């Protein structure tokens, strides 16, 4: 038993993948054509976000190129160049500053240099493409943290019950007593005011984490309460499994089934929440690549001749949201025990 043959392992994995793909929820999902369209669009957005440096290439002489140590914009698109890798995996902060064509607030229509036109002097195309990147980055971080926090706290709450459960649930009650948006706004303004010069993403991440984990915790707790009574958990306990091990190995994986589809849906809703905040003038500084402020800029230029300042950002946001909702909803339905 010292060496395990490799072949069976891969075949086993492959069959597990096949099992997964042919499991009932996934089959149901695969049959839903709209959901598949949604998934494809969502993946496209993901690709746009990842390949932002190529799609909206920083122009020559920009601070982004300077900080990348590149001498020409072509280097960004060349996979053999170090710059390519740095731009895609560790882009310096200056690349997230929307390129500015002019300092005049008057919009200019789509042209060679700014494909979607400019708004407040900023290149709309660059802002939307790099904004996708910002949004995904934050979205993954926030959903990741909230999911982990929510699962852990929810599992503890449900598994132990008693006063711990009570304390956690009452705390969640207090959090829920304030509309999430208001709590987020308060947290961000206070965090930003107390830490001037802080990276703008940090207050956003913290605020969304504070308001986001409780939702998962409630779901997971409910699930844990249900699975706790299942026989195999009892069996494991009678075999001497310790509490943390028990939670991790048996209770949590089962509860994840209901939390994960929601997490995927949240990957789509968190960016919209962030965009709504910057629409209200909170969150990112002017000129940072993200979506909400591009809509905010459009507020002052609603006349038909400036259609592009409104239409492109709105279309981008709606399409993104639509894609995630089509896919996420179907996913949730597929895993919803009620409709199974």
């Amino acid at each position, binding site marked *: 038993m010292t060496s395990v043959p490799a072949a069976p392992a891969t075949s086993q994995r492959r069959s597990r993948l096949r099992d997964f793909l042919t499991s009932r929820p996934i089959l149901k999902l695969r049959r839903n054509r709209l959901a598949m369209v949604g998934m494809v669009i969502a993946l496209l957005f993901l690709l746009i976000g990842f390949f932002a440096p190529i799609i909206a290439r920083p122009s020559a002489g920009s601070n982004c190129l300077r900080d990348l140590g590149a001498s020409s914009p072509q280097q960004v698109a060349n996979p053999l160049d170090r710059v390519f890798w740095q731009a895609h995996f560790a882009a310096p902060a200056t690349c997230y500053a929307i390129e500015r064509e002019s300092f005049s607030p008057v919009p200019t229509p789509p042209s060679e240099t700014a494909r979607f036109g400019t708004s407040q002097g900023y290149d709309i195309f660059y802002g939307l493409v790099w904004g996708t990147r910002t949004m995904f980055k934050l979205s993954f971080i926030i959903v990741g943290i909230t999911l982990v926090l929510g699962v852990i706290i929810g599992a503890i709450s449900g598994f132990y019950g008693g006063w711990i459960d009570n304390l956690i649930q009452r705390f969640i009650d207090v959090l829920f007593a304030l509309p999430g948006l208001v709590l987020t706004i308060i947290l961000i303004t206070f965090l930003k005011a107390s830490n001037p010069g802080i990276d703008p993403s940090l207050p956003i991440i913290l605020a969304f984490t504070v308001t986001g984990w409780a939702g998962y915790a409630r779901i997971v707790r409910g699930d844990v309460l249900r699975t706790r009574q299942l026989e195999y958990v009892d069996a494991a306990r009678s075999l001497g499994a310790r509490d943390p091990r028990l939670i991790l190995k048996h209770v949590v994986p089962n509860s994840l089934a209901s939390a994960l589809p929601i997490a995927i849906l949240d990957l789509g809703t968190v960016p919209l929440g962030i965009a709504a905040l910057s629409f209200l003038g909170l969150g990112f*500084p002017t000129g940072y690549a993200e979506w909400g402020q591009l809509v905010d800029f459009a*507020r002052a230029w609603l006349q038909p001749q400036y259609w592009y300042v409104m239409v492109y950002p709105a279309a981008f946001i709606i399409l993104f949201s639509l894609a995630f909702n089509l896919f996420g909803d179907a996913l949730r339905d597929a895993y919803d025990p009620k409709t199974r």
Partner: protein
Amino acid sequence: MKKVALLSSLLVAGALVGTAQAAVAKDTLVVQWSSDVPTLDPSATYDTASGAIVENLYETLVTYKGASIRELEPLLATKWTISNGGRTYTFDLRKNVKFHSGNTMTCADAEYSFERNLVTNAAESGNWFIAESLLGTGSNANDDKSITWAKIDKAVECNRAGQLVFTLPKVDPAFLSKLAYAGQSIVDRQHAIRIGEWKGTEADWRNWIGKDLQGSNLSKQPSGTGAYRLVRRDANAILAQAFDGYWGKKPAIKNVIIQRVPELAARQQAFLRGDADLIEAGGRANIEEQLKGKPGVVIVDGLPNTVASAFFMNQNIKDASRLGSGKLDGRGIPANFFSDVNVRRAFAYSFNYAQYIRDVQNGKGKQRTMLLPDSFPGYDAKIKTYTYDPKQAEAYFKRAWGGNVWRNGFTLNVAYRAGSVPAQTAMEILKKNIEALNPKFRINIQPKEWSAMLNDSKAGKEPMIIIGWAPDYADPDNFMYTFYSSNGYYFPRSNWKDAQVDKWLEQARETTNTATRNRLYSLVGQRAYEQSPYILIPAGVGIIAHRDNLLGVSARTYNPMISFSDTGTLWRDLSKK
């Protein structure tokens, strides 16, 4: 049955979206602003939104003559005399003036108004400068124990002839213009006491020291002598009506409505459709691109601007974390980086004034010679100005710090007030030009919340900031002392000290002779050009848009000291056809 329901709901919908709209009536002025109005109590008024309403409900002793900011004329006073070497002012008050409550104005009301300002003198209010004139300190009795009731009582008194007498501790050339400020309006003493304000006597004066009056009872129920009286005020509108008992000419416009509409697009549409006569239009670019040339819209351009803004170059930066490496090694700056005049001049030559005027001010801007509005007395147009000149900038950078700046480069961290687009743009322009001079020059720009910015800049922690000053009263001292004196309010932000300049500015405070003062201010301006402690940001040219049926708005009548900057006049001077 279903069909009937459907039909009737369609009918209702039709009635609801009907486009027929009543245009604004001839006797009604509709104004839309984005911001709210903090207070209607003159004593607490220290912002233009409040001032714009208060100056129409209340009146001051003196006011600016027409569009002039140099000449004052009597308003609630009829004449005044100055005696005792410029330290006693005696005012004759207008007779038969009625408050909105019906009470007749007497000298007791005027005395009460000023004493109330001196007693309360809340930190948020603008009463510090009247206290400076009358008590010799900007503080109230809580902060400065030398202020007694007797001192306040003596500073402003009514004599037997019913005249109002001010006694100043020392000469103040700006005293009269301070009296023209809306915050120094005469309030209705009897009415105020009746609704629970300070009783006007020594008995309860201690309870009122430092009291914030923004939400006072008087703010809720104002009673002034102004041509308009408050009808109602709710979350999103202020309604005023012409006051029948007004002592002066009956105003042509009977109703005034100030609406709060935060959305710019909504304001623009209301204006273009004639639903609003005046709006906060969002700046020159928006007016020129979206309102100019549209039917029913009149543009008034070329209006004076009384704000002075500048880049502050802090010569003694007191926060190590903002300095990078703290050395001239390309990765930071030393704390006294800007103490070398060559650095300051190089920066002043690096700012593209013309581009700023073109892009930010839509081509309408003016480079001033000093940090004083060009319409103010004491402004000297003959002093030289800096221009954008990369060659000169390079030459001065090469000379700075023994050549180390040019050889090693620097990284400078600058901040602007979050949300201030003009400040951000100005910094981006400066950054672009300076970084183009030498690849070793780097400027990082970051936004900071106002709350943090205020204190960090005041504590001298910010290497470079942009701030402006708007006049409290039309006297050059209000600007010159603030910016250029080492005892001035802005000194901790720039840490620029010049003994000669300090002396000139003190001298200008001690005389009322206009010619002497003008000469002294010219000297300060000239010295400031040579030393370049600030980069002067071009001043925008004022522009307003109004509906064509509104009469009485023109560049000739526009007074920049009037808080109602929508027309630069009082409401009573407007009419509609």
